[in-house]
């Protein structure tokens, strides 16, 4: 039974670790393009990840099995392998995007060459993953990610029209280019519900050896942690909407994101924004690399987990190393990491049904869950979000093309 203090620490880590480069890019671009009109889309996304992360955590705590274990059982070997390959390909794009993002932030801080920083980033990540225990990794990057709360302060200091902000929480079709608006809806929901998050969360629960006694911790982490984490997304969008939209500044560079915090708050805002972004993106690079390794190990039945120590789960260890290296190879080609970020989110959206259907199925399975199987509310929410996920999965690629990747 964890102490309140320990639960609070877990929540803080969840808040700080909530955003990754996909959330940062999409929320700021949405703010710069549509002001506050897309805040409701973030709410939808946050609701989705809360619903499914709670399920994943519960499955892991009760059965000791992470979610991807169940993918093969639910979908069979053939379809399951397709789901694995799709998940890994999409995940690689995500890892590449995060690594690229780290290098960009480091470049903004240091002025060193981009490619050198890519190598540095991968080596540093590898070292951290090799040496640090699981909980330390999550806590350190989670807490440092809290620096992004500077955007909440920035949002307030920029004096947005709070009336308009409130209206943004109500779903609407928005003004302006309809295809671009729809593209952002898909991107924002997709960035919040990106697959590696649930795979990572459920495996993380097993890493921390949760049992049925930790179901309360699970709920607290998810409900409080992710809701408050959603505030970071709101803050990014609101501050971008308040600063960038009126000046006609398009918001698609990480430096632009940092400027949004610097304008109202000066140098301290800039530093907190850059450090927070560095921590959040690094945490995401780690989480997505591990997620890739978890998925393949869980599909084939290899031993896995940082809690087994590096040599105790050797194929798993080699898997995350390979994921990091492959991600690095993608981004060292010089491809624009911001574009890779957008593509990684959009292609993740296409893969979302393959991610979420098995979760809903296994959370209802009494052999796995006993009396902790989904209740009516979890199934209602789960079913609703499954519908959302199917709709955006179908719409994602057409909207990518029709909206010219959000450019209109």
């Amino acid at each position, binding site marked *: 039974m964890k102490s309140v203090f320990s639960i609070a620490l877990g929540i803080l880590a969840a808040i700080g670790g909530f955003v990754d480069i996909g959330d940062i890019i999409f929320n700021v671009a949405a703010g710069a393009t549509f002001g506050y009109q897309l805040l409701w889309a973030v709410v939808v996304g946050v609701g989705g990840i809360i619903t499914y992360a709670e399920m994943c955590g519960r499955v892991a705590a009760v059965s*000791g099995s992470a979610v991807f274990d169940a993918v093969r059982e639910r979908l069979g070997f053939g379809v399951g392998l397709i789901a694995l390959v799709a998940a890994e390909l999409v995940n690689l794009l995500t890892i590449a995007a995060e690594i690229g993002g780290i290098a960009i932030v480091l470049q903004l801080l240091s002025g060193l060459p981009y490619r050198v920083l890519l190598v540095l980033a991968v080596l540093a990540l590898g070292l951290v993953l090799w040496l640090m225990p699981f909980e330390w990794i999550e806590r350190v990057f989670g807490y440092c990610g809290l620096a992004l709360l500077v955007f909440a302060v920035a949002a307030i200091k920029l004096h947005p029209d709070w009336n308009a902000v409130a209206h943004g929480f109500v779903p609407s079709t928005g003004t302006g280019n309809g295809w671009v608006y729809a593209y952002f809806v898909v991107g924002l929901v997709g960035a919040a519900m990106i697959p590696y998050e649930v795979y990572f969360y459920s495996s993380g629960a097993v890493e921390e050896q949760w049992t049925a006694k930790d179901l309360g911790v699970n709920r607290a982490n998810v409900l409080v942690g992710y809701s408050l984490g959603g505030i970071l997304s709101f803050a990014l969008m609101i501050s971008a909407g308040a600063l960038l939209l009126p000046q006609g500044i398009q918001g698609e560079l990480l430096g632009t994101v940092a400027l949004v915090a610097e304008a109202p708050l000066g140098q301290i805002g800039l530093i907190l924004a850059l450090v927070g972004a560095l921590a959040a993106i690094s945490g995401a690079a780690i989480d997505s690399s591990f997620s890739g390794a978890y998925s393949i190990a869980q599909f084939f039945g290899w*031993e896995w987990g940082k809690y087994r120590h590096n040599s105790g789960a050797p194929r798993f260890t080699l898997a995350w190393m390979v994921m990091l290296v492959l991600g690095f190879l993608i981004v060292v080609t010089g491809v624009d990491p911001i574009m890779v970020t957008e593509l990684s989110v959009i292609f993740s959206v296409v893969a979302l049904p393959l991610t979420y259907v098995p979760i809903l199925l296994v959370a209802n399975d009494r052999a*796995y869950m006993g009396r902790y199987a989904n209740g009516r509310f979890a199934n209602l929410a789960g079913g609703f979000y499954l519908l959302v996920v199917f709709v955006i999965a179908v719409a994602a690629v057409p909207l990518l093309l029709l909206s010219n990747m959000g450019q209109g």
Partner: protein
Amino acid sequence: MSSAFDLGLGVLDHALVDSEGRRCGKVDDLELEGVRDGNPRVAAILTGPSAWSGRGRIGRVVAAIVRGRLVRIPWSEVDRLDSAVHLRKTAKELGLGRGDVRAAKLVERIPGSSL
């Protein structure tokens, strides 16, 4: 008994866990007996890449590419069933998890591998 048979079918693709709690593969296929005499039973669990050739077209293709071993675990070695199949012996005794043994030789060369 048909209920034992259904139980056996129900473990397909589930995880294998040895007596020490180590994960050591998946139930890749099942060896059935007594189907023709009307008394179907699960004789053994089959695990390993070769077992995938019985799992549809994709399974055949992957089995041909990977070309791994096949390990046969008699049903008598099953201790209990929950979300995973728990076995009575260790992975080493059953000849499972050899991939990890080979990979461990590589990983152990790097300092800090016990972390």
